[in-house]
């Protein structure tokens, strides 16, 4: 039950993209279609989980003064492994992701999870935390990717869904669209949270009134 909680907190409550506003660069750069977004999300999930496991295994050995360089070297090693694997098995995806794949090394979210969670917890919870955060990241990427590909190209995963009558506004796939879409998603998330809070307050007042 506790482990399940560690997993689900990354999905919505502490979603890396929308809530913590960390690692925004890839969230904009590779989300112009769903396929790339999914590839990037899964890569990050792999890196974050492996790194959390390594850091938490060695958490009692690493001297606190040199911890950040150690984390960075560990992350860079895992990213290199992921890059070589992708280059061998998914060459097209590797080419599309380009330098953003190498830049996974400096994603704030990976270093943040190592520092905040994995350095203080046992291996299994750290692994679950990494999986949850990675899943939350992938979810965020998928949401942005779906919206942008749907509006900007009328397709999903490369399959044309909207008919030829649909004139796609190309700007959504280009740079400015990414910023504007994320701005609106953050707005909607805040709005829904506000609604929930208001409803809760109202029901509490109503409950108080009957007593």
């Amino acid at each position: 039950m506790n482990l399940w909680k560690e997993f689900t907190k990354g999905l919505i409550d502490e979603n890396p993209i929308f809530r913590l506003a960390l690692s925004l660069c890839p969230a904009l750069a590779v989300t112009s279609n769903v396929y790339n977004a999914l590839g990037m999300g899964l890569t990050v999930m792999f890196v974050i989980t492996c790194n959390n496991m390594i850091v938490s295994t060695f958490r009692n050995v690493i001297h606190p003064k040199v911890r950040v360089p150690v984390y960075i070297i560990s992350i860079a090693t895992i990213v290199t492994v992921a890059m070589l694997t992708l280059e061998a098995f998914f060459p097209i995806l590797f080419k599309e992701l380009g330098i953003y794949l190498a830049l996974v090394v400096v994603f704030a979210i990976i270093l943040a999870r190592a520092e905040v969670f994995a350095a203080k917890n046992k291996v299994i919870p750290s692994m679950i935390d990494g999986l949850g955060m990675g899943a939350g990241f992938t979810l965020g990427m998928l949401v942005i990717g779906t919206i942008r590909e749907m509006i900007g190209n009328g397709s999903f995963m490369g399959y044309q869904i909207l008919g030829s009558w649909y004139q796609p506004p190309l700007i959504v796939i280009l740079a400015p669209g990414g910023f504007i879409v994320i701005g609106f998603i953050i707005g909607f998330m805040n709005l829904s949270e506000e609604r929930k809070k208001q409803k809760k307050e109202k029901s509490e007042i109503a409950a108080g009134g009957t007593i």
Partner: protein
Amino acid sequence: MSEYFLLFMGAAIVNNFVLTRYLGLCIFFGVSKNFHASSSMGLAIISIMTMSSMLTWTIEHFILLPLGLYFLKTIVFVVVIAVFVQILEMVIKKFMPTLYNVWGIYLLLVATNCVILGVPLINAEANYNFLKSTVNALGSGTGFAIALILFASLREKLQFSDVPKSIEGLGIAFILAGMLALAFQGFSGMIPL
């Protein structure tokens, strides 16, 4: 000569780091709350970017390529840049304390960031020579500083405007950045690369 000028303009404006390539967004949204901080950040980025690009080019061409260790470039670049920034910080602290008071924190913030790591990777991918990669780094840094300072000035105006409550803060900042990117979109295709 014109080749280098075009490379500089291309890196600074046409392929702007933040608004077209989406790099360094954490700094872009984090530091742009006031004008003064963003201009010092811009200067810090230009100088570190240029110096670290020169350093990584040298390492890449004199150590990694002859030894056949090219696949390690990501690890090596990250570590080299982090160490370099750390040393630079110590030197500035010791010899130029006034400069350190203005810049100090920004230097460390920049140490492991996608803007700084992005330039050496782009240089390596495009296979630029030493002079070209330096010019590219200088141009990219200038472009980042321009975008940061423009955006900070816009955000200062935003403080006095009446924004809907749900998109206050980060939400409106993103939409504003989108508008700025729209303006920069006008430059695209100006220089064939």
